[in-house]
């Protein structure tokens, strides 16, 4: 049996509850990979999932994670969902500054988390904020000129990857968006120019189908700010008195500057999560300003890769409901954004937050940070804790256990996620709303 019927205005018939025999679902969208892969073929047998086609290290692992625990626990003892919710509400009611963290969930989960946070005066932060803020701070300081995946696929003649290990984090990016066979405005996609600045690619995904390896201008991540600043200066024809910068020969950077200026549609991509050095947002801003400069004469666009584990979803929903990204506090009765003060890690290590509600519906590895404050976890089934939280509610994963919406890295496309199996696990939205009602 094949599980989809295209239909523009009726819900596709994908709510699968037949447990008796294996069913195969086609064109399943993934909330795991950030680039919105939606061509997966997945077999469902009971609660076991198997990616049959188009899997990758990220998506196959994400979908195939087995369901283990389905019962909520309080203090390590199995309880009913109602009891777990009541205990969570008891904890939150007693707090002065609760922290709603993790926030790896879907749009409805995020909506419910914000409704709860608004009610209890909590701070909201996402588990990937340290990375996401490198982009958001650059955006809020200067803005940017960005593009989306289909434009890259059809238009890019030059791709500059800055500092990131794209391949292991986004395994199918090159296959889907760079080495695609058909492109509307690129005669021969195999001739696309791919240049890595900083870290060399981990594998050969960036190697062209004709065997041409990507060009690598290698330097350490710590040297990237300087290298990127020099690249921007070269684009402005500034004279640089050096033969190399961060180990990159100046002549190579001069050639790269020329390529960027002559590309019809250059794309500059980076993975904020890989830029693990202090004030990486300043380098991102330099990149964004460089891209703006290039657009005075040609076209060039940024492509920040990210969006895994719901970080793009969290910031988008928080953006429209509060006006701000995450790291927003409801403590004074209205949203107040502070990307430094409201960082989850800081609030916990400084002893400012006095309870933690952690939502992590995608990845069992993403457990809450170590803390002594009372902790409530709404987590994917199968999580193993170093320290048992005060309350644990196993929740369903969006796009597997319930329908929902998740954002892709380019912040434009929201994927409609489908329920693939009947595990009985509640959605994070359901549990968060129940806690909100219990806390009143």
């Amino acid at each position, binding site marked *: 049996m094949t599980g989809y019927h295209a239909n523009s205005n009726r819900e596709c018939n994908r709510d699968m509850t037949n447990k008796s025999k294996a069913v195969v679902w086609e064109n399943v969208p993934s909330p795991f990979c950030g680039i919105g892969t939606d061509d997966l073929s997945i077999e469902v047998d009971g609660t076991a999932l198997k990616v049959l086609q188009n899997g990758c290290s990220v998506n196959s692992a994400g979908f195939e994670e087995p369901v283990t625990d389905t019962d909520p626990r309080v203090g390590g003892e199995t309880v009913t969902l109602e009891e777990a919710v009541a205990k969570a509400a008891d904890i939150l009611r007693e707090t002065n500054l609760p922290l709603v963290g993790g926030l790896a969930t879907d749009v409805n989960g995020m909506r419910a988390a914000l409704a709860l946070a608004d009610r209890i005066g909590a701070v909201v932060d996402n588990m990937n904020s340290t990375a996401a803020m490198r982009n958001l701070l650059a955006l809020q300081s200067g803005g940017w000129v960005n593009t989306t995946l289909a434009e890259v696929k059809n238009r890019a003649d030059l791709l500059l990857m800055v500092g990131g290990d794209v391949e292991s984090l986004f395994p199918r990016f090159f296959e889907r968006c760079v080495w695609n066979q058909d492109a509307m405005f690129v005669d021969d996609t195999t001739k696309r120019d791919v240049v890595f600045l900083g870290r060399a690619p981990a594998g050969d995904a960036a190697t062209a189908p004709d065997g041409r390896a990507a060009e690598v201008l290698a330097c350490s991540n710590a040297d990237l700010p300087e290298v990127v600043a020099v690249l921007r200066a070269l684009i402005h024809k500034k004279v640089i008195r050096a033969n190399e910068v961060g180990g990159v020969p100046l002549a190579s950077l001069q050639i790269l500057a020329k390529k960027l200026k002559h590309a019809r549609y250059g794309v500059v991509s980076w993975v904020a999560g890989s830029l693990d050095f202090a004030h990486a947002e300043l380098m991102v801003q330099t990149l964004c300003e460089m891209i703006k400069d290039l657009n005075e004469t040609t076209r060039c666009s940024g492509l920040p890769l990210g969006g895994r584990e719901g970080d793009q979803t969290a910031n988008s929903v928080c953006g429209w409901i509060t006006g701000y990204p995450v790291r927003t506090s409801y403590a004074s009765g209205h949203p107040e954004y502070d990307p430094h003060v409201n960082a989850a890690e800081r609030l916990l290590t400084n002893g400012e937050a006095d309870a933690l509600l952690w939502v992590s519906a995608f990845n069992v590895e993403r457990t809450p940070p170590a803390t002594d404050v009372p902790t409530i976890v709404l987590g994917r089934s199968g999580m193993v804790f170093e320290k048992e939280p005060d309350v644990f509610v196993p929740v369903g994963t969006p796009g597997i256990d319930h329908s929902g*919406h998740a954002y892709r890295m380019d912040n434009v496309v929201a994927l409609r996620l489908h329920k693939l199996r009947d595990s009985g696990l509640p959605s994070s939205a359901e549990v968060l709303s129940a806690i909100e009602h219990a806390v009143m």
Partner: protein
Amino acid sequence: MLIKLTGGTVYDPARGVDGEVRDLYVRDGRIVDSPNDTAIDKEYNLYGKVVMAGAIDMHTHIGGGKVTIARTLLPEDHRRDPFQRTDLLRSGCGHAAPSTLTTGYRYAEMGYTAGFEPAMLPTNARQAHMEMGDVPMIDKGGYVMLGSDDFLLRMMAQRKDQQAINDYVAWTIKSAQAIGVKVVNPGGISAFKFNQRSLDLDEKHPHYGTSPRAILKCLATAVKALGVPHPLHVHGCNLGVPGNMETTLKTIEAMEGLSVHLTHIQFHSYGTEGDHKFSSGAAQIAEAVNANKNITVDVGQILFGQTVTASGDNMRQHANHNHAHPNKWVCMDIECDAGCGVVPFRYRDRNFVNALQWAIGLETFLLIDDPWRVFLTTDHPNGAPFTTYPHLIRLLMDKTFRNDQLTRINPEAAAMSSLGSIEREYSLYEIATMTRAAAAKLIGLTDSGHLGASARADITVYTEQEDKEAMFAKPDYVFKDGDLVVRNGEVVKVVWGTTHVVRPEHDDGIEKSLRDYFDRYLTMKLENFTMSDGEITEDGRGSLSVHPCSTGGEA
């Protein structure tokens, strides 16, 4: 539950009622005829009050990616206008690009009961609807953007017949859950991706060879053929460019009688006279609008102060980025579908150009004779936030106030404007026309914008005051679908409006070529692209209201 609204002075232009004392009856969310035999459950004494249908904003950017980019870009603007949580209302923020919840509350507090997002990208329709789903109090809907999407431009370049284009337009309307179609800088957003920096009405697209004129005619013809009530919503070429009134006049001519709505016409009414080579073209534009009954316009009035401009027109937004205030801006190319540009802006009354823009908008309002064909907008937030509407209404209704404001703007601009010599003051009936009756008619909402039997009981009650700004800022009562939701300008009940859509019929054959195109060139599968009804209704708050198309459309 039967509610009686007794003795109000009713302005209901859809039925020709101009300030007559009438009783209204409301049952189950609808207006009903006088039910002689039934007991009244609740009565409101409205003697001496002004009663109108709930107001409809037919062009306001309240949902979709570029609005949230604008929100995210400007934390400093939000910080000046926090919205505090109450027992009833969620917290949020206001000013230029308010949070969704605050947007809904503030519209309702001004007596608005519907707002339409005019720039819904097909690829971003989900987000637009999800954001509008978080806007309480008002009904909503979206116009889906076409005209720079590669699928249409390919069809035109391949000279596909109009019928196939109609099918594609209908399919897009349905898949995006839209109530109308908008075109923004026809072909220009695509041309910008090819590094073209301007595209005039008869200029050829660098890749496809199509002209904006051809795109406009093609889409306006499709919208008409499909029987979609709202005519093609047009954001024309050359937005903001001095001398663009010539383009606008040519655009009106080019339509050869086909119905189109020209949006934020103020930004398209500029001449090149005077020392600054910038002058008002409002008189010529108004004359053309008066003469061509197939044309409707909304103004896109600018008002002074900080705001943020958010548009699909990234070609023109990029050209204006040097004016960004504060100095930060975003442009995006989007999915072979469209684009967007977000540029914060501060309109200054002492600046010649801004002051003249202000005057041009007001001249436009006052020189177009027919309030059924000119609509009250600031193109929120592009000209000013929607919360300035009461002020704008006062400028239209109160000549003394208007002339007083005119003395405060850049004197050169004031001298170049005919505004001071215009005597006209809008009447309450005319305000009710442009903000209610005509807006509903233009969009194709048969049961909104009026107070006749079977209409939605969306009703706003004001106390008539000399100061029209004060009057329109704070209604005594607002009813939404029969519920009292605002009392004395404050929300007393939170409701969730419906989403208005149309569903024109089309030949399913179009899906075959679309499927092939999606598989080859896009990054989504066709069936993952189309929006289902459940996505709007499944949370139990949202609902869909399907409006009929005039020919063949599914009711």
